[in-house]
């Protein structure tokens, strides 16, 4: 069996796809919101250095990624082991070496990878303008970064709408509003300060 077919097989047997989707959206949302918070927070604090924003953003996203990977892997592994034990008791048979056992171990790893990668990817996408800050001003990079973060939030909401077969636009707007609320709160801080 080819490598990709094997992965598809494990995903199907372990039924990890819906869990993976949940982890992806939850953590990509976290990643985008954290980036948004760092970018606007730096703007509120004064003249931000692009390198400072990139470092803070990457540091936060890597911490989220590592914590996401370990947290999801350990949790999923415990749940899957429990399920496998219960199935083994019903079958009166050791299933560790069967395809179900392999799929179960794969599912824990898969959940960890998705949980770990999604916030890092979302945060990096939001910080992209600062990587090109030598091309344009920091103010423009900040604005672009905010727009990208809000767009990422909208797309995550739209994806939620798609998988729930509901209105994609409406779900996109819901998550976009959360980002807008954060933006407004931080901008209010700036005007007060």
């Amino acid at each position, binding site marked *: 069996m080819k490598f990709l077919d094997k992965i598809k097989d494990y995903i199907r*047997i372990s*039924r990890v796809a819906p869990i993976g989707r949940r982890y992806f959206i939850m953590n990509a949302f976290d990643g985008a919101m954290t980036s948004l918070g760092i970018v606007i927070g730096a703007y509120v604090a004064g003249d931000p250095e692009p390198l400072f924003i990139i470092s803070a953003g990457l540091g936060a996203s890597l911490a989220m990624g590592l914590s996401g990977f370990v947290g999801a892997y350990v949790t999923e592994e415990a749940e899957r082991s429990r399920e496998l034990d*219960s*199935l083994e008791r*019903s*079958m*009166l*048979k050791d*299933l560790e*070496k*069967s*395809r*179900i*056992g392999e799929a179960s171990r794969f599912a824990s790893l898969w959940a960890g990878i998705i949980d770990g990668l999604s916030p890092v990817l979302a945060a990096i996408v939001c910080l992209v303008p600062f990587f090109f800050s030598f091309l344009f001003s920091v103010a423009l990079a900040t604005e672009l970064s905010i727009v990208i973060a809000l767009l990422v939030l909208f797309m995550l909401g739209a994806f939620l709408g798609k998988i729930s077969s509901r209105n994609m636009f409406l779900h996109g707007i819901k998550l976009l509003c959360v980002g807008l609320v954060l933006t407004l709160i931080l901008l209010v801080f700036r005007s007060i300060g």
Partner: protein
Amino acid sequence: MIRRLVLDVLKPHNPGIVELSNELSELDGVEGVNIVTYEIDQRVENVKIILGGNNINFEEVKKKLESLGAAIHSVDEVAAGTRIVEEVGTPQDKSARL
């Protein structure tokens, strides 16, 4: 040279019988597969698997089923040789029923 094999198998719900039949039909010497579910429990199910072919390798079938998490409960019928011999009724069967 096994031509027909009837097995009583206990298996988890996943993989289902559609996938199981596909996997078994891909084995060397197997030409046809029939799987019937006759009992479903909360976590497992009992199925009757009938394999037909020109040279079924029992060890390969057993290995495949085990890799899919299934367990053979019993081998209920085997037909081997150049011609498939069907089961025939005998007076003893009748007296046994009485």
